[in-house]
């Protein structure tokens, strides 16, 4: 009798689990082109606007700090630190925003198109979690210690962001087929058209 009750309970539990799975609202496949284009835009902003080495080096370069402190009055030093802190916080905010856009895209749509292995998906999930955590830690460190107090976290963050970008690039690769790339190279290369 007890065994029967146990089996019934397991059966009911499985049914409830199936019902919950069926109720889970998936992202609609129709009309998801906009999300792909937005994800592509987020990826491009990260790769070309926020994560280039020279830009990160410029923002967090200690040479500027040493130069200002050695050659200017204290009030200019203060102004410099304020400005650099503002820029570095802006950088973290922008990176976090674009990473969240990419994460949303991966959660909703990427598995419909990209053949990601389970291992890749787990790695990607960990990288997203690490990135969001690093963004938060970096913001706190920048507030507390200023723009030059978090060099190691910046390194961790940019490395994780590069991995996420590489995985997203694969998911969105179909948006820039070779023919389109060739066309883009042949036309207005310097982007003067508005």
């Amino acid at each position, binding site marked *: 009798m007890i065994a029967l009750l146990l089996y019934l309970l397991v059966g009911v539990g499985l049914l409830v689990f199936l019902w919950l799975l069926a109720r889970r609202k998936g992202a609609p496949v129709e009309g998801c082109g906009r999300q792909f284009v937005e994800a592509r835009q987020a990826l491009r902003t990260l790769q070309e606007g926020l994560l280039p080495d020279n*830009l990160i080096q410029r923002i967090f370069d200690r*040479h500027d700090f040493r130069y200002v402190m050695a050659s200017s009055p204290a009030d200019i030093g203060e102004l410099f630190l304020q400005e650099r802190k503002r820029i570095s916080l802006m950088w973290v905010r922008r990176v976090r925003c674009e990473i969240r856009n990419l994460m949303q895209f991966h959660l909703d749509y990427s598995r419909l198109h990209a053949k990601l292995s389970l291992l890749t998906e787990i790695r990607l999930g960990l990288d997203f979690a690490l990135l969001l955590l690093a963004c938060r830690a970096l913001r706190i460190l920048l507030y507390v210690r200023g723009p030059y107090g978090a060099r190691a976290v910046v390194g961790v963050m940019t490395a994780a962001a590069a991995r996420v970008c590489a995985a997203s690039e694969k998911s969105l690769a179909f948006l820039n087929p070779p023919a389109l790339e060739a066309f883009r190279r042949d036309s207005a*290369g310097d982007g003067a058209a508005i």
Partner: protein
Amino acid sequence: MRPPAKRMDVLAAADDLRRRTLVELTRPLERLIYLASTRDYNTGLYYHQGLAARFSEEAACEALAGCHREAFEELVDASLEELVYELEMYLHSTRVAPSDFIVAWKGLEPYRVAVPVGIDSLSSELVFSNLKVALAILESRLAARPEPGASRHLSPVQ
């Protein structure tokens, strides 16, 4: 909207621009200000009569846009020390009284309208921020060694 120019024409026009016009402007800040001045505020399109006559308006526009972007990217990559030097050289090239120049640049921030199209806002904010600090450094240096030709009546720019 204009049709895009052929890439070969754009490259030739850019080469011509660099050899004939920009060769005189050795500093990126000078080039940036000059190239921004060739852009129509209402349309965002660049115009250079000589270049347009030699190539085409479209090719000239794209060549000017490309060189404008190059000059801006050089400023993004410049250290603060280099930027102070850039600013000092630019100040000398304008032949304006240094104090007048500082007041005008601090008040009007003319560099804000000199950003090429398509530049990420973070890069432009970094350049604006560095220029603001560079101006403050230059001002303190000029105050330490006032020039005899400097204007005596400074009025703040609104």
